[in-house]
């Protein structure tokens, strides 16, 4: 029993970390809370549904198509929506309202294009493995492995490549980064696109497990906000830790409270936690 709870927790936690990573990246770079993050996840799921489920093309091709689509959405959002607003207004409400607007826009577009039905796709891999007393379907193992690869790749990119360094510099001190020759416009766009891609990839993997419908976005965004609040906004390690913690708590909650009160307790717990530690576990009081 315990082992099953842990396996479920890791499965949820790793994909959650992937979602939180994208959200925290956009926040760190642009000081924008991307309300449309859940909708980007849903869009990613629908692109994979279409390419893999409807057209019957290979799953990996669907992942590539998803990454490309979300990358383009990210670029367009940054260049034509967030950049002009951030340039004209320094008030945080402006970008927040815009972010909320983009969430509604994306959700409506998804509804028009893909309809309101819940959609699923055939399993990518079949079979179940047994770890101790716990069962882990191969499909879920694939999600764990792919998510871990994406998270690992992201960290390596940020730590050891020139563009990764530029993104970190931009997040820590925008003006000082400009003085090193970093083009703020280009790198904000790259960062926003990467954040959107991470959300989309999570959606793409999940559609093969639990399916997707157009109304799922807001709930995913809320979960992503919870994770980022637990771990600390704008910090890569915080997003990963926040994701794993939420996944594990959720798994324990679903085991012990079959009635669905899990998130009631998670929200109460979060309020108490934030009162004690407003910056989250890894959060830095960014000045």
């Amino acid at each position, binding site marked *: 029993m315990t082992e099953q709870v842990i396996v479920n927790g890791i499965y949820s936690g790793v994909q959650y970390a992937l979602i939180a990573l994208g959200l925290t990246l956009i926040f760190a770079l642009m000081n924008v809370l991307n309300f449309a993050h859940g909708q980007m996840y849903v869009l990613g799921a629908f692109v994979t549904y279409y390419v893999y489920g409807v057209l019957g093309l290979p799953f990996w091709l669907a992942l590539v198509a998803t990454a490309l689509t979300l990358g383009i959405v990210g670029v367009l959002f940054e260049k034509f929506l967030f950049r002009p607003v951030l340039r004209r207004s320094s008030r945080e409400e402006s970008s927040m309202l815009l972010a909320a607007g983009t969430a509604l826009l994306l959700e409506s577009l998804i509804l028009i294009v893909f309809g309101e039905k819940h959609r699923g796709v055939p399993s990518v891999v079949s079979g179940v493995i047994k770890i101790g007393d716990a069962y882990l379907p191969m499909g879920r193992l694939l999600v764990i492995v792919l998510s871990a690869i994406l998270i690992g790749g992201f960290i390596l990119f940020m730590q050891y490549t*020139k563009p990764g*360094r*530029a993104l*970190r*510099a931009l997040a*820590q*001190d925008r*003006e*000082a*980064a*400009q*003085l*090193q*020759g*970093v*083009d*703020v416009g280009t790198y904000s766009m790259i960062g926003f696109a990467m954040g959107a891609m991470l959300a989309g990839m999570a959606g793409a993997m999940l559609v093969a497990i639990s399916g997707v419908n157009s109304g799922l976005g807001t709930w995913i965004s809320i979960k992503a906000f919870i994770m980022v609040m637990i771990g600390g906004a704008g910090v890569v390690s915080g997003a990963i830790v926040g994701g794993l913690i939420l996944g594990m708590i959720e798994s324990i909650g679903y085991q012990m409270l079959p009635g669905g009160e899990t998130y009631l307790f998670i929200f109460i717990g979060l309020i108490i936690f934030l009162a004690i530690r407003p910056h989250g576990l890894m959060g*830095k009081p960014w000045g």
Partner: protein
Amino acid sequence: MQLEATEIHVNYDHVRAVTGVSLSVGEGETVALIGANGAGKTTMLRAITGLTRPDSGEIRYEGHRLDTMAPNDIVRAGIAMVPEGRRVFPYMSVKDNLLIGAFARTDKNGVNATLEMVLGRFPRLKERYSQAAGTMSGGEQQMLVIGRALMAKPKLLLLDEPSLGIAPKLVQDIARSIVAINRDEKVSVLLVEQNSRMALRISHRAYALATGAVALEGASKELLQDDRVKRLYLGGEL
């Protein structure tokens, strides 16, 4: 002249920060910009680096107009700035702070050579190579941002208050480094300082700003002996 700013006016939200300042820096020169807080020194540096657009006036560097260029292109043209308050990237290692300084460069071998030079000049940075920059002392951070600016291999180095908040003993070290950089690396220097005595000692020429305009200019040696400078900037009654 390598850098020539003519009749620069800058307003911040209708507050006039700089009103008609003209200044120049010749190749190989160290030029000091002194004056009290709010005299417009930092604003002039921000205008040169493109962080602030002048409302009118012209800035030319090796014949190119700077006042229409983006900050990241101005770096590529050969101007590096050490901003006020140090502004290291606090959560990045010393190594990454230095490497990001060379972000605009594409000559990998040249970057390695510059890195060797910087670490040779500031051995402390070598000791702290993997440490997060934000955990270092103020003096060490100041060395880091000077090193970071040198990593861009600039032809003109702008320094904004490098002595601010630094232990007096280290101020001497930093002053010596500036002289050495100017001499050994053939980098022209435009130095903004409230520590006027230090700035006048290590510079060839100087401008004294007061409320957004040039009040005095001339050879630093002469300004050090000037009664008005003594009275206004070198202690005594204000």
